[in-house]
């Protein structure tokens, strides 16, 4: 279900320009530009986690991660 507002035409046009520019870059370059590493508190503090269900994982994120990381359903 779509709940987000549509972008205005100028924003959409700017995105299309970015998509065009990206399409001219080789995959290797796109990949290098995409992966930005920053420390995420709590999330990055364990080397391994596993959850029986995806719902358990979502619930864990909601309860344990700072809301500003955006892994929950509300800020």
């Amino acid at each position: 279900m779509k709940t987000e507002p549509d972008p205005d035409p100028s924003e959409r046009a700017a995105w299309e320009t970015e998509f065009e520019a990206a399409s001219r870059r080789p995959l290797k370059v796109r990949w290098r530009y995409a992966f930005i590493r920053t420390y995420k508190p709590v999330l990055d503090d364990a080397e391994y986690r596993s959850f029986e269900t995806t719902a358990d994982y979502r619930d864990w994120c909601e309860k344990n991660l700072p809301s500003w990381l955006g892994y929950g359903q509300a800020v």
Partner: protein
Amino acid sequence: MAKQFEYTQAEKIRDAFAEHGVRYLFLGKSGAVLLGFPDTTQDADVFLEKSEANGTAAVAALRELDFALTDEQASEIRRGKDFVQLKNGPFDLDLVFAPDGIERFSDAWSRHIEIEGFFVCHPDDIIASKAATNRVKDRESLPRLRAFRDYWLRRRP
């Protein structure tokens, strides 16, 4: 802290998964980046078919890539726990056996895209998964991702 996820490492995943016959699809923003979506992300999500044979193949490939999996962790991957977060290797990787918004691996596989040997979910599945998850960070990225999907469909040969 894990190191930056370099393209050469992505190639190593691709090649190790191919060598071991792992049934996988890149999902999430990393999948969208493979399709050409210009955006940033921090880790890669792979959707794995849930079967013991596929879990066993994935464990073998991940160990070859220097993920330090204990026997217990390997066992959890073999049996396909729905969500496994790996930060014990050369880069961060989420193994997703049951993503939100996608009913079956076979459904996603029937629509998948191959980009330079990488198997990637169709943009509709990436969007469906993010929409079903409904996290703040996914809601923020969806309008741009939908615009990219429209652009990608127009450009697709």
